[in-house]
């Protein structure tokens, strides 16, 4: 009988120990699971660098405008008084159209959130094709001269602007090579001018552009 009771006590003790061990192991498992979850939550999200065809790097000194760059980032921007005229992602930011000896540079973007374009027409630049843009390197065009016409289009209406003063500076025009093969041209520069909008004088200031010109946006006809 004593043996039987002792045996029962032993069995209960073993049972208790078993339960205790189970508890310990479940506690350990729980800690390990928490650690694993913690580790997973801490594991790095791989950083990505967004890729876009127009690379708009904001200019901290001129809010709303892209930085001045020379790498074919396909952006432009300028202040029109306090408003911003800037390239977007949707429209092709530039088309170059050569008619006879007139070089037309059409910049398309947004002004006050609405579509707008400015066309600069420079007379006396009979470029045959986009590689010839390199001849414009470091050239400054006086926009006050009668060899320059500027047309503003906004809200489906176009007006030829009377220029009070201004200059258009092709600071750097380059050949762009991909895998050592000539692909297109890059034109980069700055512009600023004063004109009239509805008989009110306005200043277009801090203008800058960095644009790739190739088969798709150069026309000669």
């Amino acid at each position, binding site marked *: 009988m004593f043996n039987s009771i002792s045996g029962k006590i032993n069995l209960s003790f073993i049972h208790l120990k078993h339960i205790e061990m189970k508890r310990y192991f479940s506690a350990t498992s729980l800690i390990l699971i928490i650690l694993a979850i913690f580790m997973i939550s801490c594991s*790095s999200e791989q950083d990505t660098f967004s890729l876009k065809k127009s690379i708009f790097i904001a200019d901290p000194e001129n809010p709303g405008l892209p930085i001045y760059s020379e*790498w074919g980032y396909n952006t432009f921007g300028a202040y029109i008084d306090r408003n911003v005229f800037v390239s977007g992602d949707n429209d092709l930011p530039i088309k170059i159209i050569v008619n006879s000896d007139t070089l037309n540079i059409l910049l398309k973007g947004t002004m006050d959130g609405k579509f707008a374009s400015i066309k600069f027409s420079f007379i006396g630049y009979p470029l045959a094709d986009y590689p010839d843009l390199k001849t414009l390197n470091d050239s400054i065009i006086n926009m006050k001269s009668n060899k320059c016409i500027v047309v503003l289009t906004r809200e489906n209406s176009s007006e030829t602007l009377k220029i009070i003063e201004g200059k258009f500076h092709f600071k750097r*025009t380059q050949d762009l090579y991909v895998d050592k093969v000539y692909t297109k041209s890059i034109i980069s520069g700055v512009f600023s001018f004063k004109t009239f909008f509805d008989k009110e004088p306005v200043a277009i200031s801090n203008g800058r552009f960095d644009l790739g010109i190739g088969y*798709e946006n150069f026309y000669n006809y």
Partner: protein
Amino acid sequence: MQLKKVFFVSIMLLFSLLSFSENPPKLSVLVEFGGNEVDPSLNESWNIRQDVGTYSFDYSSSSNAVMTDMYVTNFAVKPEISFFKNKLALSSGLRFSNIKSDLSVVGNSSDYSNFFYLRYNTTGLNTEYARINSIAESSNYLGVPFDVKVVPFSILSLDFYIKTGLELGFKLNSNTKIDFVNESMSQYAQSIISDVGLTTNNLYSAWSTSLGVTYGQNNKLKYNLEFLLPSFFITKNNSTIVNTDMFTGFKCSIQFPVK
């Protein structure tokens, strides 16, 4: 001067521990393997862009992107000395670390090409880009870790511990590979890397803290598993491809008693 002070204090601390501990210190040797997942960001010295074209293609977040990745694997042999019935342990030794980092394009590749453009030359009136599938770098370091381990509680044969440690490594070698779209560009790989003008740091140092568990009996073989809490690189430029700051990871080791 500062280093001398730290060294002197460390030695004094070690002797104090040895003299005041009730039980004699125990020596063991750890053979350790670990892996660290690093939180990297693109090193902007690599002038990368998607295309030199002017057509728009996708404005959603699913558009292509360059992904950066970095992983450190390490292998160490470390003698460990423990005090106060294994409640405190110091270890040091030799650790080999391999740091792998890479750049590759991810995203909606069915919509768009699976490569990116790297601008590598902008001299004179030329700007040159190369089309690249990926850039990968591997660097090997041999270093000395110094770890302090505290075991606040034990359950059965499990010792739960917190460990913090510093590591200082020296570069053995480093290799950067560029996978070009146009294989004929491979001949320019070295000059492109030179033009970027970055070299991996000759030193590698990191500070890590981890939570871990040891399984095993005293004076017998023990097994350690630990998870790194967010830890930090002390040195910069251990990869020329990515910038690093924080890492997490794991370490597992076998601990051999030395009698």
